[in-house]
C-alpha cells in the first residue's frame, strides 16, 4: 500500500497548521517555508518550525519541510529536527546542488541530534535542465525518496502559457516517472490542466488530475489546499490493474 499519497502544503507561519493536519489527515504534512509564507513572516516561520514538527509527532503523518531555494541553508538548519521525515526541495538545478544539500543536511543532523542520514529528500523538478537531468538528480543522494513534477511555473520557462491542454506537460511527467522508477523513488505529480490546478482546482479537476496521474505511474501528489486531500488519497489508492 502506498503510504504517501497526499502531500498537503501547510504554511509554516500559520498557527492553525497543526489543526489543519489533524482535520484533513494527509499522508504527508509539508510545512512550508517557501512561497506560501510571506517574506515578513519567514523568520518567525523558520523559528517555529521545530515546535510545529514536535506538535505533529503524534499525528501519524510524515512531516516534511519545504525549503526556499535562496535561503535553503538557514531553512535546513531550522527544519532538520527530531520528528522530521524529510525536506522538500523545489527546482534542483543539478547533481552538485543535491550533493551539497545532502552535506548541509548531514551537518544539521549532527548539530540537532538527528540520526545522520535519516532525513529524506523529495525533489520537485521545475526547470528544463532539471527534467533533462532527472535520473542523475534522483541518484545524486541516498536521501532522495521522491521525484516530483513541480509547479507549472516551469511552463513559463519552456513556452507560452498554454490555453488548452499542455501536451509538453505529459512529456515531462513521462520523463519524471521513468527517472523515478528507474531509481526506485516515488514519482509525485498530478495531470493538472491549465486554469484548474493547485490552489484553484475544483474537486472534480483534482479527481481527474490525480486519477490520470495514478494511471500514468505516479503514486502521490502535492495538495496545495487541504480540501484536495480526500480526493487525492482515494485516486492514488486505485489498484495497479
Amino acid at each position, binding site marked *: 500500500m502506498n503510504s504517501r499519497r497526499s502531500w498537503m502544503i501547510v504554511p509554516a507561519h500559520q498557527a492553525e497548521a497543526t489543526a489543519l493536519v489533524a482535520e484533513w489527515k494527509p499522508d504527508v504534512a509539508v510545512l512550508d517555508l517557501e512561497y506560501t509564507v510571506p517574506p515578513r513572516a519567514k523568520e518567525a516561520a523558520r523559528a517555529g518550525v521545530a515546535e510545529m514538527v514536535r506538535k505533529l509527532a503524534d499525528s501519524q503523518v510524515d512531516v516534511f519541510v519545504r525549503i526556499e531555494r535562496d535561503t535553503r541553508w538557514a531553512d535546513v538548519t531550522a527544519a532538520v529536527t527530531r520528528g522530521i521525515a524529510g525536506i522538500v526541495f523545489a527546482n534542483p538545478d543539478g547533481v552538485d546542488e543535491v550533493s551539497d544539500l545532502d552535506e548541509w543536511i548531514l551537518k544539521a543532523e549532527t548539530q540537532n541530534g538527528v540520526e545522520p542520514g535519516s532525513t529524506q529528500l523529495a525533489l520537485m523538478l521545475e526547470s528544463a535542465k532539471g527534467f533533462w537531468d532527472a*535520473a542523475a538528480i534522483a541518484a545524486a543522494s541516498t536521501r532522495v525518496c521522491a521525484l516530483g513534477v513541480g509547479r507549472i511555473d516551469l511552463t513559463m520557462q519552456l513556452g507560452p502559457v498554454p490555453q488548452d491542454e499542455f501536451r509538453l506537460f*505529459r*512529456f515531462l511527467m*513521462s*520523463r519524471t*516517472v*521513468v*527517472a523515478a*522508477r*528507474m531509481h526506485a523513488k516515488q*514519482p509525485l505529480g498530478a495531470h493538472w490542466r491549465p486554469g484548474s490546478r493547485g490552489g484553484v482546482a475544483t474537486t472534480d479537476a483534482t479527481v481527474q488530475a490525480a486519477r*490520470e496521474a*495514478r*494511471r*500514468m*505511474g*505516479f*503514486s502521490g501528489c502535492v495538495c496545495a489546499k487541504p480540501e484536495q486531500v480526500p480526493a487525492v488519497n482515494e485516486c492514488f489508492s*486505485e*489498484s*495497479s*490493474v
Partner: protein
Amino acid sequence: MQHDITSSAAPGGDKPLPKFIRRSLVALSINDPRLTEKASACEADAIVLQFDKLSGSDWQQELRARMPAAIHSAARAGAEVFVRIARNAAIAELDAAVFSGLTGIVLTGVSGSAEVRQVCDHLARIEERRGIARNCLEISIDVDNPAAVWHSLDIARASPRFGMLIVNEQALCVSLGMQTQPQLAFDPLEYIKSQLITVALAAGGQAVGMSYPLGLTGQQVEDATLKKAVRRARDTGFKGAMCPHVSWVAACNVGFRPSDDEAAYYRKVIEVFAEGLKRGMASVPLDGKMVDVPVDVRAKLYLQWANRAAARDAEKARARAASS
C-alpha cells in the same frame, strides 16, 4: 537468414528503409510440443524462441540438445529466428541457446550499455566456436524497464550488432507503476514510444511496437480495429509488432508496409517526375499536388519498401512450399 550486421547498405549504396522487413514477430516456446506445427503454420516474419529453465535439471545441457532442432523447426516457414535471453543470466543462456540458424537474440532486462557490450563480446566467441559467420548475430533489446528507456540511446549504440528496440508495454507499465488496463484517453507511453522509435533509427535499427491501447491489452480484436491499430503504429514509426496472437500476423504483414494502392501511386509519382525531368522540369503536378525531388525520393524509398515486403512474402511462401 544470416548477414553481416556491419554492412547494412542496400544494393546501389542507399540504406534501405526500413532496415529489416520484420512486420510480425511471434514468440514460441521450445518446450511447446506443437512448436513445429505452430511455426509451420505461422506466417510471421520473425519467430522469437523462448525456453523454460526447469529446476532440478541440467537446463543448459537440455537446452543445448534441443535448440538446434528448435531453430530448424522455427525457420521452416521462412521466418527469421531469434532467441530470448535474460540479461541476468546472459552468458549461461547464450552458451546454451545460440546456434547456427539464428538471426540473433532478444535481450531482456537490460539496464545499461555495459551489459550489451558484454553480450556482444560473448556472441563473438560463440560465433567463432560454433562456426557461425563472424558478426552475423544481432542483438535486439526488449525494452521492459525504466532504465532501458532512460539509457536507450547508449544501449542501442553499445554494439554494431544492434537490430531492434522492442517495446514491451505490459512489462513497462508494471515497472513504471502504471495501470495495466488502458483507462486513459491518451497513451501514457506516447513519449516513451516516440523516444524509442527515434533512438532505434538513430542507432541504425528499428523499433517494434503497437499503438494504444492494443499494444497494452494484446487483445484479439475485429479485423477493422486491428487494421486501424497497425496503421497508427506504422504512422508513429514502428516497423513491426510483437504479435500476442497468431491472428495479428496477417494484419501486421499487410499493414507494416505501403499498401498496393500506395505502391501504385508511388510508381506513378516516379514515372511522372522522370518525364518531367526529361522535359527539363524539377517540379511537376500530379493529381493536384506538386512532385519534386523529395517527393520522388520518398516514392522510391516507399516503393522499394513495398517491393522488399512483397519479396519477403514470396520468400516465405517458397519456404513453406518446400517444407510441406
